């Protein structure tokens, strides 16, 4: 029983990864304004981040 469940869960993982890789099947795209705004925020975060754990209050 446990082995069967473990097998099922493994299959679930693979199915989710396949779905993720394929781009998902969401009913709609994100708002373009959000996509653009997040892109610029992330770029700023990346550029001013000297270390991996630098924070960005604007994004929190």
């Amino acid at each position, binding site marked *: 029983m446990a082995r069967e*469940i473990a097998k*099922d869960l493994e299959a679930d*993982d693979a199915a989710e990864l*396949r779905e993720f890789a394929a*781009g998902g099947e969401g009913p*709609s795209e994100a708002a373009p304004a959000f996509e653009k705004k997040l892109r610029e925020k992330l770029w700023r975060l990346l550029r001013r981040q000297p270390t991996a754990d630098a924070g960005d209050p604007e994004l929190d």
Partner: protein
Amino acid sequence: MSEPSSVTAVPVSTSSEPVAPSRAEAPARRTKERPNRRSAAPWDDDAEMVRQILAGSRKHFDQLYDAYFPRVYRFALKRLRDPGEAEDVTQEVFVTVFRALQTFQGDSSLLVWIFGITRNKVNRRFRRPRPRMESIDDEALEIPNEEAATDNIVDARRILDRCQHAIENQLTPLQRRIFHLKHLRRQSIRTIAGSLGKSEDAIKANLYRMRRAIAAAAPGLEQLLDA
């Protein structure tokens, strides 16, 4: 962008921490031997892509963002069914990814790494109690009982809608049949197994998967049923 045809089961971290792929992960080593085969991304080498981004290449940053933004957002939206929550998760995922990018060694693919972070962030949303608006305004704190009751009804309807959607969209036809026999006809697992020509273990495993899927899609359902 083509869908990878050979994605197999991979171990995915259950932690939401931005853990870079471990050298101990066998599938990760296979990915390094065949750069980016599973990533379906328009570049050949994840490690080189990361190096370029860390070196300040806006072009490479845009490429990574363009490749993964839709995946992260759609994955989150499909599960959370709320554009606002999907946006929150998308932001959390990318902040985590870029904060941890320096630790990326290329031992596994970016696809698997970002997928793991995304799934953990989504799962954390399901586990987290629904935030309640609070105010220091005394008047706002005095919520009439009728309004509180209405809130509870709205919450319950929302949870049941999600439950219904999960049953209709996430269960296989066989699982829906099992669900019907078990929960509406109140049949025993042995009876269901006999009528469907399956083993009792197979029925139990399917029931477990259904509970998991429904609980993930309808957070708060158990508390609602216990109330």
